[in-house]
């Protein structure tokens, strides 16, 4: 056997929400089929940096480990993506791992994606069905519509589209491409469509749909392959119709 192969990681760390960010290097023993999460777990077991100093272990968030929960999003070698599907064998070393800077950093790689949930509340991304009596089954959905909605429904609120978008930053109040896709999803639901104008009103309020600059990075970056730019153009069309309808109806 040859000598133990090592994985070289450069991690951008921060000790707390107000802490100064700094970079720390780690060299950890290679095992086959590792991903970024298992590399971080290795650091957790033996929190010694490349200089041989024992440090506090690196903090991160993860849940499902199969790219469906969106919790472990981080910037790996410059690309925002999920750490669980970032396989060490497929990454160029040294591997640079950073938190997604679009969001407030809680500590190290753990970020607060709360703004995304605020955005979903703002655009009312749900179907209100509660009543005082049984409303019966909803209308049926055409198969083509179902397929389209299925694509949109894959959003896991991971935040990668916000990190990729040049118009989501500290100077802008854009709520992000994902929220546009969610309005499209709920406005094409036969029952959800009953409230579609409420969602459109919210979507074209400040920080909404109009902030899109068509760089189309979101559709490139989305780990779930959601047709976000098609959803954006769809909602642009709806917003155009809505705008004229509103003007001419008063």
């Amino acid at each position, binding site marked *: 056997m040859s000598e133990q192969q090592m994985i070289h990681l450069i991690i951008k760390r921060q000790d707390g929400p107000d802490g100064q960010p700094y970079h720390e290097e780690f060299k950890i023993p290679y095992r086959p089929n590792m991903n970024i999460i298992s590399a971080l777990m290795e650091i957790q077991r033996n929190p010694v940096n490349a200089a041989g100093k024992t440090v506090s272990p690196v903090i991160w968030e993860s849940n499902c480990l199969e790219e469906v929960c969106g919790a472990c999003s981080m910037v790996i070698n*410059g690309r925002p993506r999920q750490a669980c599907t970032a396989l060490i064998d497929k990454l160029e070393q040294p591997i640079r791992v950073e938190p997604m800077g679009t969001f407030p950093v809680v500590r190290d790689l753990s970020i607060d994606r709360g703004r995304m949930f605020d955005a979903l509340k703002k655009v009312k991304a749900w179907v209100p069905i509660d009543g005082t009596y049984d409303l019966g089954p909803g209308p049926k959905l055409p198969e083509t519509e179902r397929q389209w909605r299925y694509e949109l429904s894959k959003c896991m609120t991971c935040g990668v589209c916000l990190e990729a978008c040049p118009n989501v*930053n500290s100077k802008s109040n854009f709520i992000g491409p994902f929220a546009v896709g969610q309005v499209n999803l709920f406005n094409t639901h036969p029952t959800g469509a009953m409230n579609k104008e409420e969602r459109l009103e919210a979507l074209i309020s400040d920080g909404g749909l109009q902030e899109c600059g068509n760089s*189309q*990075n979101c559709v490139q970056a989305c780990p779930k392959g959601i047709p976000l730019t098609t959803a954006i*153009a769809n909602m642009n069309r709806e917003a155009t119709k809505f705008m004229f309808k509103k003007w001419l109806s008063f």
Partner: protein
Amino acid sequence: MSSQRSFFNRRIHSLLGVIPVGFFLLEHFYTNYKANESAQSFIDGVEWLWGIPFLLVLEIFFIFLPLMYHGIYGLYIAFQAKPNTNQFGTFRNYMFVLQRITGVITLIFVVWHVWDTRIRVVGLSEHSLDVAKNMAIEQALRLQSPVFLTIFIIGIIAAVFHFCNGMWSFLVSWGITVGPRAQKVSTYVWMVAFVLISFVGIKAALAFNDPSFIDEVQKITAAQH
């Protein structure tokens, strides 16, 4: 409910970029291209335009104010973006950045160009027919210099790029080209338009660069006196 002001501002910005600003760009190239035919043809074109009634009102409300709105609000939009082409080196992301860069170049060029040709030469007073010849000569003399010719060509290419790529995003922003295929076809259509319109614009500038143009204008002036 929060305000929808930014939505309306963005839509007005988008619309004004096409009508009247984009339309004016095309008309401007069309008139200037006549200089290739003959100096007389160009001067006739200018004089026809100056014969339009209520010209100053039209210029202020259909060119100057929309252009200023589009330019100033555009600067606000451009400087709000945080370009990331090093992370995402895709075609559309480069177009996004170029749209903002060419917008700024075009605004600087147009402000100088309006001052240089319209305000400095003609002033805000009534147009007179002699002024058309003066302006033609002044611009032709200016374009003899390779430095000014280069500045004009950069300005023309930036303006045409901004117009054509802007038309692409106009079609997306108003929900006309929705799907990826439609947007791709639109990309090709506007690429061809970019080449053709740039050709017309540059060819017009080169007509003024031709020394024989000055002789022709002087001959017309001499014939009248």
